[in-house]
Protein backbone atom coordinates (compact mmCIF):
# COMPACT_ATOMS: atom_id res chain seq x y z
CA UNK A 1 0.00 0.00 0.00
CA UNK A 2 2.63 2.46 1.10
CA UNK A 3 4.85 1.47 -1.79
CA UNK A 4 2.33 2.16 -4.49
CA UNK A 5 1.37 5.47 -2.97
CA UNK A 6 4.95 6.57 -2.76
CA UNK A 7 5.86 5.57 -6.28
CA UNK A 8 2.75 7.20 -7.64
CA UNK A 9 3.59 10.43 -5.91
CA UNK A 10 7.21 10.26 -6.91
CA UNK A 11 6.41 10.10 -10.60
CA UNK A 12 3.89 12.90 -10.30
CA UNK A 13 6.26 15.91 -10.31
CA UNK A 14 7.90 14.80 -13.55
CA UNK A 15 4.63 14.76 -15.44
CA UNK A 16 3.08 17.84 -13.88
CA UNK A 17 3.44 20.75 -16.29
CA UNK A 18 4.44 23.29 -13.66
CA UNK A 19 7.12 21.05 -12.14
CA UNK A 20 10.60 22.48 -11.85
CA UNK A 21 12.19 19.62 -13.74
CA UNK A 22 10.72 20.81 -17.01
CA UNK A 23 11.70 24.44 -16.64
CA UNK A 24 15.11 24.26 -15.00
CA UNK A 25 15.93 27.59 -13.43
CA UNK A 26 19.34 28.45 -12.06
CA UNK A 27 18.12 27.87 -8.50
CA UNK A 28 17.05 24.31 -9.29
CA UNK A 29 20.39 23.45 -10.82
CA UNK A 30 21.97 24.89 -7.69
CA UNK A 31 20.15 22.23 -5.68
CA UNK A 32 21.37 19.61 -8.12
CA UNK A 33 24.94 20.77 -7.57
CA UNK A 34 24.45 20.56 -3.82
CA UNK A 35 22.98 17.07 -4.14
CA UNK A 36 25.95 15.98 -6.26
CA UNK A 37 28.24 17.29 -3.54
CA UNK A 38 26.41 15.20 -0.91
CA UNK A 39 26.62 12.20 -3.19
CA UNK A 40 30.34 12.73 -3.74
CA UNK A 41 30.98 12.77 0.01
CA UNK A 42 28.81 9.71 0.61
CA UNK A 43 30.28 7.71 -2.24
CA UNK A 44 33.90 8.72 -1.65
CA UNK A 45 34.69 5.39 0.07
CA UNK A 46 33.38 3.54 -2.99
CA UNK A 47 35.54 5.71 -5.25
CA UNK A 48 38.49 5.13 -2.97
CA UNK A 49 37.97 1.37 -3.12
CA UNK A 50 38.07 1.42 -6.92
CA UNK A 51 41.02 3.83 -6.93
CA UNK A 52 43.05 1.77 -4.47
CA UNK A 53 42.31 -1.42 -6.39
CA UNK A 54 44.00 0.09 -9.47
CA UNK A 55 47.23 1.07 -7.71
CA UNK A 56 50.42 -0.91 -8.27
CA UNK A 57 51.12 -3.67 -5.76
CA UNK A 58 53.00 -3.01 -2.60
CA UNK A 59 53.17 0.78 -2.71
CA UNK A 60 50.98 1.41 0.28
CA UNK A 61 52.74 4.62 1.22
CA UNK A 62 51.51 7.03 -1.40
CA UNK A 63 48.27 6.08 -3.08
CA UNK A 64 47.59 8.77 -5.67
CA UNK A 65 44.18 10.47 -5.52
CA UNK A 66 43.41 9.51 -9.12
CA UNK A 67 44.49 6.25 -10.81
CA UNK A 68 46.29 7.97 -13.71
CA UNK A 69 48.15 4.80 -14.64
CA UNK A 70 45.77 1.98 -13.73
CA UNK A 71 47.54 -1.17 -12.69
CA UNK A 72 45.66 -4.45 -12.74
CA UNK A 73 48.03 -6.63 -10.72
CA UNK A 74 45.68 -6.23 -7.74
CA UNK A 75 42.90 -7.83 -9.77
CA UNK A 76 45.23 -10.57 -11.00
CA UNK A 77 46.09 -11.47 -7.41
CA UNK A 78 42.46 -11.17 -6.31
CA UNK A 79 41.21 -13.45 -9.05
CA UNK A 80 43.92 -16.04 -8.58
CA UNK A 81 43.29 -16.17 -4.83
CA UNK A 82 39.57 -15.50 -4.57
CA UNK A 83 37.96 -16.85 -7.76
CA UNK A 84 36.97 -20.05 -5.96
CA UNK A 85 35.49 -18.10 -3.07
CA UNK A 86 33.53 -15.87 -5.44
CA UNK A 87 32.16 -19.01 -7.08
CA UNK A 88 31.20 -20.42 -3.70
CA UNK A 89 29.40 -17.18 -2.85
CA UNK A 90 27.58 -17.26 -6.17
CA UNK A 91 26.37 -20.84 -5.72
CA UNK A 92 25.24 -20.18 -2.16
CA UNK A 93 23.44 -16.97 -3.13
CA UNK A 94 21.63 -18.55 -6.08
CA UNK A 95 20.69 -21.54 -3.93
CA UNK A 96 19.35 -19.21 -1.28
CA UNK A 97 17.24 -17.34 -3.86
CA UNK A 98 15.66 -20.58 -5.08
CA UNK A 99 15.01 -21.89 -1.57
CA UNK A 100 13.70 -18.56 -0.27
CA UNK A 101 11.27 -18.01 -3.13
CA UNK A 102 10.09 -21.62 -3.05
CA UNK A 103 9.23 -21.22 0.63
CA UNK A 104 8.14 -17.58 0.68
CA UNK A 105 5.87 -17.38 -2.39
CA UNK A 106 3.35 -20.06 -1.32
CA UNK A 107 3.43 -18.73 2.23
CA UNK A 108 2.76 -15.19 1.06
CA UNK A 109 -0.12 -16.50 -1.06
CA UNK A 110 -1.63 -18.33 1.90
CA UNK A 111 -1.28 -15.24 4.09
CA UNK A 112 -2.64 -12.78 1.55
CA UNK A 113 -5.37 -14.73 -0.22
CA UNK A 114 -6.65 -17.52 2.04
CA UNK A 115 -8.12 -16.74 5.41
CA UNK A 116 -5.74 -19.23 6.99
CA UNK A 117 -6.25 -19.57 10.71
CA UNK A 118 -3.13 -18.43 12.52
CA UNK A 119 -2.00 -16.03 9.80
CA UNK A 120 -1.64 -13.32 12.40
CA UNK A 121 0.59 -15.54 14.52
CA UNK A 122 2.82 -16.29 11.53
CA UNK A 123 3.15 -12.59 10.67
CA UNK A 124 3.90 -11.79 14.29
CA UNK A 125 6.58 -14.51 14.37
CA UNK A 126 8.16 -13.00 11.26
CA UNK A 127 8.33 -9.58 12.92
CA UNK A 128 9.79 -11.04 16.10
CA UNK A 129 12.35 -13.04 14.10
CA UNK A 130 13.89 -9.74 13.01
CA UNK A 131 14.75 -8.96 16.61
CA UNK A 132 16.78 -12.15 17.14
CA UNK A 133 20.50 -11.38 16.96
CA UNK A 134 22.38 -13.39 14.34
CA UNK A 135 24.93 -14.51 16.92
CA UNK A 136 22.17 -16.27 18.88
CA UNK A 137 21.11 -18.17 15.76
CA UNK A 138 24.73 -18.96 14.87
CA UNK A 139 25.51 -20.17 18.37
CA UNK A 140 22.70 -22.73 18.31
CA UNK A 141 23.13 -23.67 14.65
CA UNK A 142 26.79 -24.43 15.13
CA UNK A 143 26.04 -27.15 17.65
CA UNK A 144 23.17 -28.54 15.56
CA UNK A 145 25.20 -28.43 12.33
CA UNK A 146 28.05 -30.16 14.09
CA UNK A 147 25.76 -33.09 14.95
CA UNK A 148 24.17 -33.16 11.50
CA UNK A 149 27.43 -32.86 9.58
CA UNK A 150 26.34 -29.63 7.93
CA UNK A 151 29.38 -27.59 8.97
CA UNK A 152 31.60 -26.63 6.01
CA UNK A 153 28.93 -27.51 3.51
CA UNK A 154 27.21 -25.52 0.82
CA UNK A 155 23.70 -26.81 1.64
CA UNK A 156 24.29 -25.83 5.26
CA UNK A 157 25.15 -22.27 4.30
CA UNK A 158 22.28 -22.02 1.81
CA UNK A 159 19.85 -23.03 4.55
CA UNK A 160 21.32 -20.65 7.11
CA UNK A 161 21.71 -17.68 4.73
CA UNK A 162 18.06 -17.96 3.74
CA UNK A 163 17.25 -16.82 7.27
CA UNK A 164 18.19 -13.33 6.08
CA UNK A 165 15.90 -13.53 3.06
CA UNK A 166 12.81 -15.62 3.83
CA UNK A 167 11.07 -13.33 6.35
CA UNK A 168 11.73 -10.33 4.13
CA UNK A 169 10.55 -12.15 1.00
CA UNK A 170 7.31 -13.24 2.67
CA UNK A 171 6.52 -9.66 3.70
CA UNK A 172 7.32 -8.16 0.28
CA UNK A 173 5.42 -10.76 -1.76
CA UNK A 174 2.47 -10.75 0.63
CA UNK A 175 2.18 -6.97 0.44
CA UNK A 176 1.99 -7.29 -3.33
CA UNK A 177 -0.46 -10.19 -3.33
CA UNK A 178 -2.78 -8.24 -1.02
CA UNK A 179 -3.46 -5.98 -3.96
CA UNK A 180 -4.00 -8.79 -6.47
CA UNK A 181 -7.54 -9.03 -7.94
CA UNK A 182 -9.14 -12.06 -6.31
CA UNK A 183 -11.64 -12.38 -9.14
CA UNK A 184 -8.96 -13.64 -11.52
CA UNK A 185 -8.01 -16.50 -9.22
CA UNK A 186 -11.64 -17.30 -8.48
CA UNK A 187 -12.39 -17.46 -12.21
CA UNK A 188 -9.60 -19.96 -12.71
CA UNK A 189 -10.87 -22.01 -9.77
CA UNK A 190 -14.39 -22.06 -11.18
CA UNK A 191 -12.95 -23.32 -14.45
CA UNK A 192 -11.76 -26.32 -12.49
CA UNK A 193 -8.13 -25.44 -11.83
CA UNK A 194 -6.81 -26.94 -8.60
CA UNK A 195 -5.05 -24.88 -5.98
CA UNK A 196 -1.63 -25.76 -7.30
CA UNK A 197 -2.60 -25.09 -10.93
CA UNK A 198 -4.14 -21.73 -10.02
CA UNK A 199 -1.06 -20.84 -8.01
CA UNK A 200 1.42 -21.79 -10.73
CA UNK A 201 -0.38 -20.48 -13.78
CA UNK A 202 -2.16 -17.41 -12.38
CA UNK A 203 -0.65 -16.22 -9.11
CA UNK A 204 3.04 -16.65 -9.94
CA UNK A 205 2.94 -14.83 -13.30
CA UNK A 206 0.80 -12.06 -11.81
CA UNK A 207 3.21 -11.39 -8.97
CA UNK A 208 6.32 -11.51 -11.13
CA UNK A 209 7.54 -8.08 -10.06
CA UNK A 210 7.37 -8.79 -6.36
CA UNK A 211 9.10 -12.13 -6.90
CA UNK A 212 11.93 -10.37 -8.73
CA UNK A 213 12.27 -7.78 -5.97
CA UNK A 214 12.30 -10.47 -3.30
CA UNK A 215 14.74 -12.58 -5.32
CA UNK A 216 17.18 -9.71 -5.85
CA UNK A 217 17.24 -8.84 -2.17
CA UNK A 218 17.54 -12.45 -1.13
CA UNK A 219 20.53 -12.76 -3.42
CA UNK A 220 22.11 -9.66 -1.95
CA UNK A 221 21.48 -10.79 1.64
CA UNK A 222 23.06 -14.19 1.04
CA UNK A 223 25.95 -12.70 -0.95
CA UNK A 224 26.67 -10.24 1.89
CA UNK A 225 26.38 -12.81 4.65
CA UNK A 226 29.39 -12.83 6.88
CA UNK A 227 28.24 -14.12 10.25
CA UNK A 228 27.16 -17.60 9.11
CA UNK A 229 30.18 -17.92 6.84
CA UNK A 230 32.36 -17.08 9.82
CA UNK A 231 30.72 -19.35 12.35
CA UNK A 232 29.49 -22.31 10.31
CA UNK A 233 32.75 -23.05 8.50
CA UNK A 234 35.87 -24.28 10.21
CA UNK A 235 38.05 -25.31 7.29
CA UNK A 236 38.89 -23.82 3.92
CA UNK A 237 36.68 -26.33 2.12
CA UNK A 238 33.74 -23.93 1.72
CA UNK A 239 34.66 -20.27 1.92
CA UNK A 240 32.46 -17.41 0.69
CA UNK A 241 34.21 -14.28 -0.51
CA UNK A 242 33.16 -12.22 2.52
CA UNK A 243 35.20 -14.57 4.65
CA UNK A 244 38.05 -14.30 2.15
CA UNK A 245 38.09 -10.51 2.65
CA UNK A 246 37.94 -10.92 6.43
CA UNK A 247 40.92 -13.25 6.26
CA UNK A 248 42.81 -10.60 4.27
CA UNK A 249 42.15 -7.80 6.74
CA UNK A 250 42.48 -10.01 9.80
CA UNK A 251 46.24 -9.94 9.56
CA UNK A 252 48.54 -7.01 8.91
CA UNK A 253 47.80 -5.88 5.37
CA UNK A 254 50.75 -5.10 3.17
CA UNK A 255 49.05 -5.38 -0.20
CA UNK A 256 45.95 -3.20 -0.11
CA UNK A 257 45.46 -3.17 -3.88
CA UNK A 258 44.50 -6.84 -4.04
CA UNK A 259 42.28 -6.51 -0.95
CA UNK A 260 40.50 -3.59 -2.58
CA UNK A 261 40.29 -5.46 -5.89
CA UNK A 262 38.57 -8.32 -4.08
CA UNK A 263 36.27 -5.79 -2.40
CA UNK A 264 35.38 -4.35 -5.82
CA UNK A 265 34.60 -7.82 -7.17
CA UNK A 266 32.46 -8.55 -4.11
CA UNK A 267 30.57 -5.27 -4.66
CA UNK A 268 29.61 -6.07 -8.27
CA UNK A 269 26.21 -7.61 -7.43
CA UNK A 270 25.21 -4.56 -5.37
CA UNK A 271 26.34 -2.14 -8.08
CA UNK A 272 24.71 -4.10 -10.90
CA UNK A 273 21.46 -4.34 -8.98
CA UNK A 274 21.46 -0.64 -8.18
CA UNK A 275 22.01 0.35 -11.80
CA UNK A 276 20.05 -2.32 -13.65
CA UNK A 277 17.23 -3.06 -11.26
CA UNK A 278 16.45 0.43 -9.97
CA UNK A 279 12.70 0.11 -9.65
CA UNK A 280 12.86 -3.22 -7.86
CA UNK A 281 15.34 -1.89 -5.34
CA UNK A 282 13.19 1.16 -4.69
CA UNK A 283 10.17 -1.10 -4.14
CA UNK A 284 12.15 -3.28 -1.74
CA UNK A 285 13.58 -0.53 0.43
CA UNK A 286 10.28 1.23 0.98
CA UNK A 287 8.15 -1.90 1.11
CA UNK A 288 10.15 -4.03 3.49
CA UNK A 289 10.84 -1.63 6.27
CA UNK A 290 7.54 0.06 7.01
CA UNK A 291 5.50 -3.08 6.85
Amino acid at each position, binding site marked *: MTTTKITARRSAPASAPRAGANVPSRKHWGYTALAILFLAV*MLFPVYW*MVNASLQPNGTTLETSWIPLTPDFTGYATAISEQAGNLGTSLIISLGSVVLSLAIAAPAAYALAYFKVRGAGVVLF*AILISQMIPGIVVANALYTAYNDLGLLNSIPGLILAD*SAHGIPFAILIIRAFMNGMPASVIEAARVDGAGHIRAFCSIVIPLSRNSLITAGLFTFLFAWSDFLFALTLTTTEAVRPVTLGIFQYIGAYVSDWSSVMATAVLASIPAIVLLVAAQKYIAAGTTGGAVK
Partner: protein
Amino acid sequence: MSLTTDASRTASRAGKSGSGKTGSGNSRAGKAPAGVTLAPRRGTRARRERIFQWLFLVPAVIYMALFFGYPVVKNLVMSFQDYTTATFFTGEAPWVGLANYVTVLSSSLFSTSLLNTALFTLGSILGQFVIGLALAVFFQRKFPLNGILRSLLLLPWLLPLIVSSAVWRWILDKDSGALNRFLGELGVIHTGVPWLTSTSLALIAVVGVNIWIGIPFNLTILYGGLQEIPDELYEAGSLDGATGWKAFRHITWPMLRPVVSVVLVLGVVYTLKVLDIILGLTNGGPANSTQTIATQSYELSFHEFKFGEGAALGNVLVIISLVFAVLYLRASRRAVDE
Protein backbone atom coordinates in the same frame (compact mmCIF):
# COMPACT_ATOMS: atom_id res chain seq x y z
CA MET B 1 11.43 -34.59 18.22
CA SER B 2 11.77 -32.29 21.21
CA LEU B 3 12.79 -29.54 18.82
CA THR B 4 9.40 -29.21 17.23
CA THR B 5 7.46 -29.17 20.48
CA ASP B 6 9.76 -26.53 21.90
CA ALA B 7 9.41 -24.42 18.81
CA SER B 8 5.64 -24.64 18.72
CA ARG B 9 5.50 -23.67 22.35
CA THR B 10 7.39 -20.45 21.62
CA ALA B 11 5.10 -19.77 18.70
CA SER B 12 1.97 -20.06 20.78
CA ARG B 13 3.46 -17.89 23.49
CA ALA B 14 4.33 -15.31 20.87
CA GLY B 15 0.77 -15.46 19.62
CA LYS B 16 -0.69 -14.73 23.02
CA SER B 17 1.33 -11.61 23.65
CA GLY B 18 0.64 -10.40 20.16
CA SER B 19 -3.11 -10.80 20.24
CA GLY B 20 -3.65 -7.09 19.64
CA LYS B 21 -1.66 -7.18 16.45
CA THR B 22 -3.36 -10.36 15.33
CA GLY B 23 -6.78 -8.76 15.65
CA SER B 24 -5.94 -5.84 13.40
CA GLY B 25 -4.45 -8.21 10.84
CA ASN B 26 -7.58 -10.33 10.70
CA SER B 27 -9.90 -7.42 10.17
CA ARG B 28 -7.92 -6.43 7.09
CA ALA B 29 -7.81 -9.99 5.78
CA GLY B 30 -11.56 -10.22 6.31
CA LYS B 31 -12.19 -7.65 3.62
CA ALA B 32 -10.39 -9.63 0.94
CA PRO B 33 -12.62 -12.19 -0.76
CA ALA B 34 -11.18 -15.55 0.13
CA GLY B 35 -11.13 -18.88 -1.66
CA VAL B 36 -12.90 -20.41 1.33
CA THR B 37 -16.26 -19.12 0.11
CA LEU B 38 -16.10 -21.42 -2.89
CA ALA B 39 -15.64 -24.64 -1.00
CA PRO B 40 -17.87 -25.17 2.01
CA ARG B 41 -20.69 -27.24 0.56
CA ARG B 42 -20.03 -30.14 2.85
CA GLY B 43 -18.12 -30.26 6.12
CA THR B 44 -15.44 -32.67 4.96
CA ARG B 45 -14.78 -30.70 1.80
CA ALA B 46 -14.39 -27.53 3.80
CA ARG B 47 -11.93 -29.24 6.09
CA ARG B 48 -9.97 -30.68 3.20
CA GLU B 49 -9.90 -27.26 1.63
CA ARG B 50 -8.56 -25.72 4.82
CA ILE B 51 -5.86 -28.35 5.12
CA PHE B 52 -4.89 -27.73 1.52
CA GLN B 53 -4.61 -24.02 2.15
CA TRP B 54 -2.44 -24.67 5.18
CA LEU B 55 -0.06 -26.74 3.06
CA PHE B 56 0.99 -23.54 1.30
CA LEU B 57 2.13 -22.14 4.63
CA VAL B 58 3.72 -25.28 6.07
CA PRO B 59 7.22 -24.98 4.53
CA ALA B 60 7.58 -21.43 5.81
CA VAL B 61 6.37 -22.39 9.28
CA ILE B 62 8.81 -25.30 9.42
CA TYR B 63 11.67 -23.11 8.25
CA MET B 64 10.90 -20.36 10.75
CA ALA B 65 10.62 -22.92 13.54
CA LEU B 66 13.96 -24.53 12.66
CA PHE B 67 15.99 -21.40 12.01
CA PHE B 68 14.48 -18.93 14.47
CA GLY B 69 12.39 -20.88 16.99
CA TYR B 70 14.87 -23.68 17.57
CA PRO B 71 17.94 -21.41 18.01
CA VAL B 72 16.16 -19.28 20.59
CA VAL B 73 15.10 -22.32 22.61
CA LYS B 74 18.42 -24.10 22.18
CA ASN B 75 20.27 -20.96 23.21
CA LEU B 76 18.16 -20.72 26.33
CA VAL B 77 18.92 -24.35 27.24
CA MET B 78 22.64 -23.97 26.49
CA SER B 79 22.87 -20.92 28.72
CA PHE B 80 22.11 -23.15 31.72
CA GLN B 81 24.66 -25.79 30.71
CA ASP B 82 28.41 -26.15 30.84
CA TYR B 83 28.58 -26.41 27.07
CA THR B 84 32.18 -26.49 25.80
CA THR B 85 34.30 -28.20 23.16
CA ALA B 86 34.29 -31.31 25.29
CA THR B 87 30.54 -31.54 24.80
CA PHE B 88 31.07 -32.26 21.12
CA PHE B 89 33.05 -35.37 21.96
CA THR B 90 31.30 -36.67 25.04
CA GLY B 91 27.83 -35.38 24.26
CA GLU B 92 27.55 -34.28 27.87
CA ALA B 93 26.65 -30.78 28.92
CA PRO B 94 26.23 -30.71 32.70
CA TRP B 95 23.46 -28.55 34.07
CA VAL B 96 24.95 -25.58 35.92
CA GLY B 97 21.93 -23.45 36.70
CA LEU B 98 22.64 -19.75 36.63
CA ALA B 99 26.43 -20.13 36.78
CA ASN B 100 26.95 -18.93 33.21
CA TYR B 101 24.91 -15.80 33.83
CA VAL B 102 26.77 -15.09 37.05
CA THR B 103 30.16 -15.50 35.33
CA VAL B 104 29.19 -13.36 32.36
CA LEU B 105 27.41 -10.59 34.21
CA SER B 106 30.00 -10.25 36.95
CA SER B 107 32.95 -10.18 34.57
CA SER B 108 34.61 -6.79 34.36
CA LEU B 109 34.23 -6.96 30.60
CA PHE B 110 30.45 -6.97 30.82
CA SER B 111 30.13 -3.38 31.99
CA THR B 112 32.56 -2.32 29.25
CA SER B 113 30.56 -4.19 26.58
CA LEU B 114 27.27 -2.88 27.89
CA LEU B 115 28.51 0.71 27.87
CA ASN B 116 30.03 0.28 24.40
CA THR B 117 26.80 -1.26 23.10
CA ALA B 118 24.83 1.69 24.48
CA LEU B 119 27.24 4.28 23.07
CA PHE B 120 27.50 2.50 19.72
CA THR B 121 23.74 2.21 19.35
CA LEU B 122 22.93 5.71 20.57
CA GLY B 123 25.66 7.38 18.53
CA SER B 124 24.85 5.45 15.36
CA ILE B 125 21.11 6.06 15.57
CA LEU B 126 21.48 9.73 16.37
CA GLY B 127 23.90 10.35 13.50
CA GLN B 128 22.01 8.26 10.95
CA PHE B 129 18.68 9.79 11.85
CA VAL B 130 19.72 13.45 11.92
CA ILE B 131 21.68 13.26 8.66
CA GLY B 132 19.09 11.00 7.04
CA LEU B 133 16.27 13.38 7.96
CA ALA B 134 18.21 16.44 6.78
CA LEU B 135 18.86 14.75 3.43
CA ALA B 136 15.25 13.59 3.17
CA VAL B 137 14.01 17.15 3.71
CA PHE B 138 16.54 18.41 1.18
CA PHE B 139 15.41 15.90 -1.46
CA GLN B 140 11.80 17.08 -1.04
CA ARG B 141 12.75 20.01 -3.26
CA LYS B 142 12.18 19.63 -6.96
CA PHE B 143 15.37 19.78 -8.98
CA PRO B 144 16.81 18.01 -12.01
CA LEU B 145 18.28 14.50 -11.46
CA ASN B 146 16.69 14.31 -8.00
CA GLY B 147 15.53 10.69 -8.40
CA ILE B 148 18.79 9.33 -9.82
CA LEU B 149 20.98 11.05 -7.24
CA ARG B 150 18.78 9.87 -4.41
CA SER B 151 18.84 6.27 -5.55
CA LEU B 152 22.63 6.32 -6.01
CA LEU B 153 22.85 7.29 -2.34
CA LEU B 154 21.57 3.78 -1.55
CA LEU B 155 24.88 2.22 -2.54
CA PRO B 156 26.57 2.25 0.90
CA TRP B 157 23.59 0.34 2.27
CA LEU B 158 23.66 -2.33 -0.45
CA LEU B 159 27.38 -3.14 -0.22
CA PRO B 160 28.32 -6.20 1.83
CA LEU B 161 29.18 -4.95 5.32
CA ILE B 162 32.53 -6.69 5.27
CA VAL B 163 33.43 -4.82 2.06
CA SER B 164 32.58 -1.51 3.72
CA SER B 165 34.67 -2.49 6.73
CA ALA B 166 37.65 -3.33 4.54
CA VAL B 167 37.41 -0.05 2.63
CA TRP B 168 37.10 2.00 5.79
CA ARG B 169 40.02 0.11 7.38
CA TRP B 170 42.13 1.42 4.53
CA ILE B 171 40.69 4.97 4.61
CA LEU B 172 41.22 5.23 8.39
CA ASP B 173 44.71 3.74 8.29
CA LYS B 174 47.05 5.70 10.54
CA ASP B 175 50.02 6.04 8.20
CA SER B 176 48.67 6.16 4.66
CA GLY B 177 44.87 6.29 5.03
CA ALA B 178 43.00 8.77 2.89
CA LEU B 179 41.45 10.59 5.85
CA ASN B 180 44.73 11.36 7.56
CA ARG B 181 46.30 12.41 4.26
CA PHE B 182 43.35 14.69 3.53
CA LEU B 183 43.50 16.26 6.98
CA GLY B 184 47.28 16.53 6.66
CA GLU B 185 47.04 18.36 3.35
CA LEU B 186 44.52 20.74 4.89
CA GLY B 187 47.03 21.37 7.67
CA VAL B 188 44.60 20.25 10.38
CA ILE B 189 46.90 17.50 11.65
CA HIS B 190 50.63 16.93 11.48
CA THR B 191 50.98 13.33 12.57
CA GLY B 192 48.73 10.44 11.66
CA VAL B 193 45.67 10.02 13.88
CA PRO B 194 45.37 6.38 15.01
CA TRP B 195 41.61 6.20 14.30
CA LEU B 196 41.25 2.46 14.75
CA THR B 197 44.20 1.68 17.00
CA SER B 198 43.68 4.16 19.81
CA THR B 199 41.46 3.12 22.70
CA SER B 200 39.90 6.58 22.90
CA LEU B 201 39.15 6.97 19.17
CA ALA B 202 38.26 3.48 17.95
CA LEU B 203 34.66 3.52 19.17
CA ILE B 204 34.08 6.95 17.62
CA ALA B 205 35.50 5.72 14.31
CA VAL B 206 33.34 2.59 14.37
CA VAL B 207 30.24 4.68 15.11
CA GLY B 208 31.15 7.00 12.24
CA VAL B 209 31.38 4.11 9.79
CA ASN B 210 28.08 2.71 11.00
CA ILE B 211 26.43 6.10 10.53
CA TRP B 212 27.69 6.13 6.94
CA ILE B 213 26.13 2.71 6.37
CA GLY B 214 22.79 3.64 7.97
CA ILE B 215 22.15 7.02 6.32
CA PRO B 216 20.62 5.59 3.10
CA PHE B 217 18.08 3.50 5.02
CA ASN B 218 16.98 6.46 7.16
CA LEU B 219 16.89 8.74 4.13
CA THR B 220 14.70 6.37 2.12
CA ILE B 221 12.14 5.66 4.81
CA LEU B 222 11.91 9.25 6.03
CA TYR B 223 11.66 10.51 2.45
CA GLY B 224 8.72 8.15 1.91
CA GLY B 225 7.11 9.49 5.09
CA LEU B 226 7.60 13.10 4.02
CA GLN B 227 6.02 12.41 0.63
CA GLU B 228 2.88 11.23 2.41
CA ILE B 229 2.26 14.63 4.01
CA PRO B 230 -0.34 16.43 1.87
CA ASP B 231 0.83 19.65 0.20
CA GLU B 232 -2.40 21.38 1.26
CA LEU B 233 -1.16 21.41 4.85
CA TYR B 234 1.87 23.46 3.85
CA GLU B 235 -0.24 25.76 1.71
CA ALA B 236 -2.64 26.36 4.59
CA GLY B 237 0.27 26.78 6.96
CA SER B 238 2.00 29.37 4.80
CA LEU B 239 -1.16 31.50 4.89
CA ASP B 240 -0.78 31.55 8.66
CA GLY B 241 2.88 32.47 8.35
CA ALA B 242 4.28 28.99 8.98
CA THR B 243 7.19 28.68 6.57
CA GLY B 244 10.73 27.31 6.81
CA TRP B 245 11.63 26.14 10.31
CA LYS B 246 8.17 26.95 11.66
CA ALA B 247 6.54 24.76 9.01
CA PHE B 248 8.93 21.93 9.87
CA ARG B 249 8.30 22.31 13.60
CA HIS B 250 4.49 22.56 13.44
CA ILE B 251 3.54 20.58 10.32
CA THR B 252 6.31 18.23 9.17
CA TRP B 253 7.46 16.89 12.53
CA PRO B 254 4.02 16.07 14.02
CA MET B 255 2.91 14.44 10.76
CA LEU B 256 6.12 12.44 10.50
CA ARG B 257 6.05 11.16 14.09
CA PRO B 258 4.70 7.63 13.35
CA VAL B 259 7.35 7.02 10.68
CA VAL B 260 10.02 8.46 12.96
CA SER B 261 9.22 6.03 15.75
CA VAL B 262 9.32 3.08 13.36
CA VAL B 263 12.67 4.17 11.91
CA LEU B 264 14.21 4.76 15.33
CA VAL B 265 13.09 1.51 16.90
CA LEU B 266 14.00 -0.57 13.85
CA GLY B 267 17.35 1.21 13.85
CA VAL B 268 17.97 0.36 17.49
CA VAL B 269 17.03 -3.29 17.02
CA TYR B 270 19.28 -3.64 13.97
CA THR B 271 22.17 -1.75 15.53
CA LEU B 272 22.13 -3.79 18.74
CA LYS B 273 22.98 -6.95 16.83
CA VAL B 274 25.68 -5.46 14.58
CA LEU B 275 28.68 -7.74 14.43
CA ASP B 276 30.19 -7.61 10.94
CA ILE B 277 31.29 -3.98 11.04
CA ILE B 278 33.00 -4.18 14.39
CA LEU B 279 34.71 -7.49 13.66
CA GLY B 280 35.89 -6.14 10.32
CA LEU B 281 37.12 -2.79 11.59
CA THR B 282 38.66 -3.50 14.99
CA ASN B 283 37.77 -7.05 16.02
CA GLY B 284 36.58 -5.59 19.32
CA GLY B 285 39.94 -4.04 20.11
CA PRO B 286 42.13 -2.24 20.88
CA ALA B 287 42.00 -3.45 24.49
CA ASN B 288 38.25 -4.20 24.21
CA SER B 289 37.46 -0.54 23.55
CA THR B 290 34.97 -1.49 20.81
CA GLN B 291 33.76 -4.73 22.37
CA THR B 292 29.94 -4.88 22.41
CA ILE B 293 27.63 -7.52 23.85
CA ALA B 294 27.26 -9.10 20.39
CA THR B 295 31.01 -9.29 19.69
CA GLN B 296 31.66 -10.48 23.23
CA SER B 297 29.12 -13.27 22.79
CA TYR B 298 30.82 -14.27 19.53
CA GLU B 299 34.20 -14.19 21.25
CA LEU B 300 33.05 -16.44 24.10
CA SER B 301 31.42 -19.03 21.85
CA PHE B 302 33.71 -19.18 18.86
CA HIS B 303 37.12 -18.23 20.25
CA GLU B 304 37.04 -19.44 23.82
CA PHE B 305 34.55 -22.23 22.99
CA LYS B 306 32.50 -21.47 26.10
CA PHE B 307 29.21 -21.94 24.30
CA GLY B 308 27.19 -21.81 27.51
CA GLU B 309 28.55 -18.39 28.46
CA GLY B 310 28.23 -17.13 24.89
CA ALA B 311 24.60 -18.26 24.90
CA ALA B 312 23.96 -16.51 28.21
CA LEU B 313 25.32 -13.24 26.87
CA GLY B 314 23.35 -13.73 23.64
CA ASN B 315 20.20 -14.03 25.74
CA VAL B 316 20.98 -10.77 27.49
CA LEU B 317 21.06 -9.20 24.02
CA VAL B 318 17.74 -10.86 23.14
CA ILE B 319 16.13 -9.39 26.25
CA ILE B 320 17.38 -5.90 25.41
CA SER B 321 16.10 -6.33 21.84
CA LEU B 322 12.75 -7.57 23.07
CA VAL B 323 12.21 -4.43 25.10
CA PHE B 324 12.62 -2.48 21.89
CA ALA B 325 10.51 -5.01 20.00
CA VAL B 326 7.60 -4.17 22.25
CA LEU B 327 8.20 -0.50 21.57
CA TYR B 328 8.33 -1.27 17.84
CA LEU B 329 5.02 -3.11 17.83
CA ARG B 330 3.35 -0.27 19.70
CA ALA B 331 4.88 2.25 17.33
CA SER B 332 3.90 0.39 14.18
CA ARG B 333 0.36 -0.15 15.44
CA ARG B 334 0.10 3.56 16.04
CA ALA B 335 1.42 4.12 12.51
CA VAL B 336 -1.26 1.80 11.11
CA ASP B 337 -4.00 3.49 13.13
CA GLU B 338 -3.18 6.96 11.93
